C-alpha cells in the first residue's frame, strides 16, 4: 500500500522494486491518494481520499482489522500482538481518551497549548532493589534508578489495557465514517482492508510505503504512527516483506539526519544538550536522557555520548572536564527552519549559511522567508547556479514590484560555487539506512569546491584565528579535533590537493580506540571511560578494521545482499528482526524465515567457553538481538539494556522491548493517532468537537495570516508536490535545458468540474490566491483530479507542483508564496500538503 507518497514520480528508481514485485511475483499494489498520479497509473487499485484524512482511513483499517473474523480466528495475530506489542500493558486509570473528552486527551494544560503526559503512563510493579550501593560510573547510576516492570493482562480484557483503549478509540472509525470523512467509496476502503488482511499472517507480509505526503501535516507524526499501529496489529514489523518504508526526499537525506543536520539532534540520534531541560552538568544530561530509556539498548547511552564528545575534542576531552560537555552548544528553543526564519525576521539571527537549499523558493510562505533574508547582516550561499536565494536582493518579485528596494537591503551576500556530487568522494545513506560509498570522478571546475572542503577549510581558518585567544569561551574552537588532511594517495590523481579525506571522516564516524586509533568493529566495543572515539554510534562497523570500508562493498545476491554496502545498525536490514520468529524462536513459516533460534548451535563465549544455542540468519542478515539470548530468557528486573530485556522482547530500542500501540511517552500531541482536520480546512471536523491538532505550532506574526475554518473566501483545498522532471526547488534541474523543456512552467491540476464552475480553460492562465499571496499558473484540467463529497457537501481540491522560481531556464511564480507557517508539534514540519485557497481564470495581475 502506497499512501502519502507518489513513489513512481518522486522515487522513480526505487519504484522498480514494487513494480518487479507486481510483475514477477504477483504482488498487489494499492495507491491511496487524493490525486490520480503516475503511481496510481501503475497500481492495481487507486483509492481517492480527501487530503489530510489519512488517520481516518488508517484508523478505519485498524478498527476493521481487529473486528475481522480472520484476525480473531488465526492465532498468529494474537501471539504476535500479545507478546511483541504493548497491547496487554495496563495504562494509568486516570487516562482519558478522545472519546471521553470530545477530541482531547487527558493532560492538556489550562491554556490549551501543551499536554502533560502524566496520565499516559504504564501501571508498574514496585521498583526493584538496586544491585549497587556506591555508584562509580554512569552505568552504576542508571542501575540505581531501574523502574518496576509494566503490568500487563495477556488476556487483553482489562479495560485499562492498551488493546481495550485502542479498540474504544477507533470504534467510530467505521467504513461508513471513512466514506463520510475521506470522501472515499466504502467499497474501495473495504477492498483495501481485505487485501491487507489476506496478505498478512504467518505466510505473508504487507508493506506500507509513505513519503512527505504523510509528514507535511500538523498531524504528520501521528499519521505515520497510525500506519505503525496497523502494521503491528497485522504482525508486519520485523519480518521480511513487512514494515513501513519511509521514502526520504533525496539522496542521503537519511544520512543527514543520522549525522545530524537537525538542530535538536546529535549524531546517532542522541539528543542535543538543551538549556530548557535538566542538562546543567554532564551527569544531568546523561541521566535526563538515559533514565527513561535505560531498560532498552539505549541503556548504553553513556557510552555513545562520551564517545561522541571524544570525537569532538579528542585528547582535550577528559573525565576531569566532563569530556568538554560545558563547552558544547545548547539549544534554547525550537530552532528548526520555520522558527529560525521568524527569528531572522525579528533580527535575532545575523548570519546565515545556505548549502544545498533554496528557501526563497522552497520555504513555506516564501515571501515571508525572502523578507527575513533581507534582515541578515550576511549570508553565504553555496550552490551550482545563482539560485533565487542568492539573487533575492536584486530580482525577487518584491524587488521587481518595487515593494522592496535593493538599496535598503543590508544583507551582504556571498555566492560561492559548489562542487557536484560526482566531483567529490563520500557516502550516501539511503532510505533503508544503506551506506554506499561513491567515487570522485573529476575535479570540479575553477573555484568550485565541495561543501565539506568549505566546511573543513573554514574550521581550519577559525582555529588559526582563535589559536592565540586566552578566553575560556574559545576553548571549543581551539580544541576542536579537526584533522582530516588527505593522504597523498587520496588526491594523487586530482588537481585539488586539499580536499579533506573522506576515509578519515568516515573512520571518525565509525569510531576507534583513542590510544592506538584502531577502528571499532561494533558499537558493543564503545566505552564510557573516554577510551573510545565515535562520531555516530549507529555507523560503527562500516569500517570494522583499518583500510576496510564496507560502504564500498558491492556483493549482491538474490535477496538481502548483506555484502552490498553497509546497512546501519550492524548491517541489519530489517530492524527488530527477532520478531520474524515466534515466541519459541521458530520461524513463523518456512516462507517468511529470517532470524530464528538454533538450540544446537555452538557458541564460543569471550572467556573461551562453549555454550549451545544461538539466533541465526542463514541469509547473512545482521541479527537485531543479543545472539545468545534464548527465547525463554527472563530479563533481570534490576538490570539495564540487554540484561533487562527478555528473550521475547524484539523491540530492543523500546524501554519495554515491545512495539508501541499506545505511546506512553515521546509524543507531545497524544498517545494515539486521532483525526484532526488540517489547520486550514474547508470543513468542520466530522469526528470530534476539537477541530485541529490542539497543540499544532503556529506563528501569529505579521506577514503570516491564517485562513478561518470553512473560510468562505478560501473554500478550495490545495496540495503542493513534486514531479519526476524536476528536483525540489529546481536548482539541479531548472538550469538544464533537457529537463526545463520537459516541464517548462508551473501548472495547476484542476478537475473539469471546478474548472467549469470557475470558467477556467485548459492550458490557459489561472490565478491561485491565499491570504499570503497569489500566483498564476497554466491550468491543467484533468479528470485525474476529482471533487470529494464530504458529509454530503462537495469539496474541491487542486494541486500545484512547486519547483519553479524566477531564475533558471524554466521559470514561473513561486508556489510557496501561497503557503503558510504552521507545523506539526513534534517535529515542526510544515503543513505543505494541505491548506486552503481560491482560484479564478486569468493572469494574476499585481504582486505575486
Amino acid at each position: 500500500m502506497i499512501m502519502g507518497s507518489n513513489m513512481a514520480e518522486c522515487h522513480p528508481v526505487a519504484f522498480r522494486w514494487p513494480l518487479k514485485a507486481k510483475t514477477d511475483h504477483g504482488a498487489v499494489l494499492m495507491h491511496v491518494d487524493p490525486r490520480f498520479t503516475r503511481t496510481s497509473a501503475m497500481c492495481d487499485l487507486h483509492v481517492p481520499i480527501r487530503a489530510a484524512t489519512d488517520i481516518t482511513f488508517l484508523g478505519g483499517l485498524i478498527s476493521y482489522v481487529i473486528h475481522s473474523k480472520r484476525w480473531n480466528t488465526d492465532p498468529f495475530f494474537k501471539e504476535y500482538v500479545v507478546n511483541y506489542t504493548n497491547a496487554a500493558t495496563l495504562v494509568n486509570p486516570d487516562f482519558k481518551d478522545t472519546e471521553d473528552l470530545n477530541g482531547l486527551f487527558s493532560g492538556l494544560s489550562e491554556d490549551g497549548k501543551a499536554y502533560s503526559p502524566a496520565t499516559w503512563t504504564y501501571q508498574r510493579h514496585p521498583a526493584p532493589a538496586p544491585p549497587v550501593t556506591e555508584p562509580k560510573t554512569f552505568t552504576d547510576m542508571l542501575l540505581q534508578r531501574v523502574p518496576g516492570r509494566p503490568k500487563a493482562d495477556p488476556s487483553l480484557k482489562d479495560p485499562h489495557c492498551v488493546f481495550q483503549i485502542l479498540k474504544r478509540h477507533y470504534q467510530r472509525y467505521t467504513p461508513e465514517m471513512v466514506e463520510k470523512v475521506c470522501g472515499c467509496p466504502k467499497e474501495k476502503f473495504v477492498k483495501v482492508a481485505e487485501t491487507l488482511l489476506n496478505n498478512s499472517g504467518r505466510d505473508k507480509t504487507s508493506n506500507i510505503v509513505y513519503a512527505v505526503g504523510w509528514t507535511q501535516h500538523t498531524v504528520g507524526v501521528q499519521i505515520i504512527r497510525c500506519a505503525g499501529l496497523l502494521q503491528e496489529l497485522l504482525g508486519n514489523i520485523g519480518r521480511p516483506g513487512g514494515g513501513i518504508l519511509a521514502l526520504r526526499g533525496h539522496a542521503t537525506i537519511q544520512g543527514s539526519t543520522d549525522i545530524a543536520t537537525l538542530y535538536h539532534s546529535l549524531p546517532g540520534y542522541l539528543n542535543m544538550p538543551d538549556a530548557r531541560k535538566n542538562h546543567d552538568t554532564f551527569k544531568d544530561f546523561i541521566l535526563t536522557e538515559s533514565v527513561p530509556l535505560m531498560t532498552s539498548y539505549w541503556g548504553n547511552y553513556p557510552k555513545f555520548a562520551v564517545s561522541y564528545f571524544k570525537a569532538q575534542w579528542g585528547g582535550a576531552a577528559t573525565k576531569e572536564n566532563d569530556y568538554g560537555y560545558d563547552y558544547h552548544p545548547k539549544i534554547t528553543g525550537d530552532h528548526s527552519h520555520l522558527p529560525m526564519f521568524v527569528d531572522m525576521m525579528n533580527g535575532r539571527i545575523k548570519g546565515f549559511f545556505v548549502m544545498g537549499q533554496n528557501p526563497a523558493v522552497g520555504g513555506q510562505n516564501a515571501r515571508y522567508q525572502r523578507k527575513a533574508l533581507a534582515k541578515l547582516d550576511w549570508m553565504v550561499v553555496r550552490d551550482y547556479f545563482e539560485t533565487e536565494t542568492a539573487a533575492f536582493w536584486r530580482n525577487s518579485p518584491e524587488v521587481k514590484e518595487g515593494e522592496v528596494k535593493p538599496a535598503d537591503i543590508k544583507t551582504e551576500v556571498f555566492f560561492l560555487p559548489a562542487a557536484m556530487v560526482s566531483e567529490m568522494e563520500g557516502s550516501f545513506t539511503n532510505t533503508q539506512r544503506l551506506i554506499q560509498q561513491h567515487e570522485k570522478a573529476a575535479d570540479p571546475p575553477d573555484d568550485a569546491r565541495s561543501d565539506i572542503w568549505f566546511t573543513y577549510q573554514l574550521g581550519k581558518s577559525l582555529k588559526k584565528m582563535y589559536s592565540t585567544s586566552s578566553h575560556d569561551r574559545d576553548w571549543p574552537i581551539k580544541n576542536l579535533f579537526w584533522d582530516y588532511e588527505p593522504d597523498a594517495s587520496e588526491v594523487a590523481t586530482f588537481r585539488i590537493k586539499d580536499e579533506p579525506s573522506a576515509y578519515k571522516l568516515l573512520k571518525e564516524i565509525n569510531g576507534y580506540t583513542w590510544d592506538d586509533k584502531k577502528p571499532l568493529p561494533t558499537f558493543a566495543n564503545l566505552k564510557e571511560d573516554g577510551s573510545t572515539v565515535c562520531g555516530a554510534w549507529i555507523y560503527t562497523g562500516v569500517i570494522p578494521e583499518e583500510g576496510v570500508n564496507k560502504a564500498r562493498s558491492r556483493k549482491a545476491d538474490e535477496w538481502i545482499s548483506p555484502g552490498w554496502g553497509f546497512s546501519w545498525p550492524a548491517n541489519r536490514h530489517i530492524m527488530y528482526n527477532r520478531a520474524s520468529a515466534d515466541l519459541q524462536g521458530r520461524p513463523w513459516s518456512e516462507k517468511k524465515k529470517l532470524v530464528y533460534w538454533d538450540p544446537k548451535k555452538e557458541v564460543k563465549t569471550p572467556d573461551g567457553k562453549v555454550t549451545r544455542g544461538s539466533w541465526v540468519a542463514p541469509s547473512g542478515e545482521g541479527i537485531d538481538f543479543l545472539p545468545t539470548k534464548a527465547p525463554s530468557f527472563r530479563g533481570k528486573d534490576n538490570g539495564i539494556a540487554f540484561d533487562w530485556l527478555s528473550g521475547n522482547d524484539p523491540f530492543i530500542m523500546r524501554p519495554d522491548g515491545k512495539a508501541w500501540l499506545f505511546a506512553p511517552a515521546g509524543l507531545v500531541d497524544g498517545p494515539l493517532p486521532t483525526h484532526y482536520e488540517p489547520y486550514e480546512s474547508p470543513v468542520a471536523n466530522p469526528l470530534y468537537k476539537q477541530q485541529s491538532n490542539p497543540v499544532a505550532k503556529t506563528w501569529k506574526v505579521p506577514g503570516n495570516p491564517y485562513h478561518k475554518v470553512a473560510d468562505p473566501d478560501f473554500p478550495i483545498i490545495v496540495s503542493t508536490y513534486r514531479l519526476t522532471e524536476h528536483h525540489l526547488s529546481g536548482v539541479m534541474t531548472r538550469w538544464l535545458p533537457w529537463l526545463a523543456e520537459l516541464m517548462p512552467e508551473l501548472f495547476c491540476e484542476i478537475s473539469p468540474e471546478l474548472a467549469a464552475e470557475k470558467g477556467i480553460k485548459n492550458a490557459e492562465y489561472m490565478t491561485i490566491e491565499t491570504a499570503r499571496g497569489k500566483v498564476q499558473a497554466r491550468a491543467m484540467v484533468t479528470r485525474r483530479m476529482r471533487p470529494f463529497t464530504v458529509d454530503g457537501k462537495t469539496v474541491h481540491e487542486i494541486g500545484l507542483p512547486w519547483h519553479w522560481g524566477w531564475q533558471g531556464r524554466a521559470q514561473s511564480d513561486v508556489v510557496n508564496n501561497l503557503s503558510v507557517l504552521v507545523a506539526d508539534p513534534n517535529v515542526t514540519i510544515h503543513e505543505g500538503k494541505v491548506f486552503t485557497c481560491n482560484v479564478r481564470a486569468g493572469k494574476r495581475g499585481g504582486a505575486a
Partner: protein
Amino acid sequence: MNAKGMFVDTSICTGCKACQVACKEWNGLSGEPSHFAKKAGYPYRVANNFSGRSYDNTQNLSATDWRHVRFIEQFNADRSEARWLFASDSCKHCNNAGCLNACPVQAIVRTDLGNVFVKQEVCIGCKYCIPACPYGVISFDQRTGTVHKCTLCNDRIHNGLGTACAKACPTGSIAFGDVPDLKMRADARLVQLKKLGYEKANIYGYDEAGGLNVFYLFLDKPEVYGQPEKPVVPQDRLHISSGVTVAAAIAVAVGAAIAFRERGEKKDKP
C-alpha cells in the same frame, strides 16, 4: 549476427522520461530550439513550451528529440474507468524501412546490427525520407541542413553497450538486446498479462513494415498509443499506386467513351 533492437514494455513504463534525457545526453542533442525563447534580463533562453496535453510538453519526435514519451489519459465522467497510459516512442528501425529506400544518395544505411542510421556527411537535406516514414520519426534540422533520428545508439551498440535509453530506464520498460531474445521475452510477458486479465494486450511490430527491430507491448490497440495499425511504407504503396494508376486509366477510358457517346447522342437531339 542477430539484429539488435529494443522491446518496449509499456505496461511497466512510469512516464518518467529518463529515456528522453539519456538519449539527449549521450547523443549530444540540445534542447529543442523551438521550446525556448529569449527573456529580458536573463542571459539564457527560457523554456516556453507548456502544452496542456497531460504531462507531454515535447509533443513529438524531432531532429533534437529522438525519443518521446506519450501520455494518454482515459477517464470517464465518474472516473469508474480510469487509466493513464505511458509509452516511450522512437525510431522503430523497420526491416522494410521507408526512409532508407527513399534516400536518393544512400545517406540512410542499415548496419550489420540491423539498425538504420543517417550518415550526416552524406545527407543532402532533400527531405524525401520525411514523408516516406509512416511513423513521423525523421526530421530536418535547419542548423545542420540534414535530417536526424534515433541511431539505436550506433556508436554504443558497435562497442558492446546497449542503448542509452534502455540503460537509463529505471523499470526495465525499455530492454535492449538481440531481437529473437527480446521476442521471447515479449511473448512470455504477453502471456502473463493476458492471465492477469489484460485482454487487449498485444505486441506491435512483429509484422508491421517488414517487422520492427524496436517493437512494443501495448495494453490496448496501437491507435490508442498513436501508432498506425497498418503502417504503409512507400515501397509497398508503389504496388498499390501502380494498381491505382491502371484503374484510373481504365476509368478515364470508360468515362471518355461514355462522354463521347453522350455527345454523339446529344448531336442526334438538336
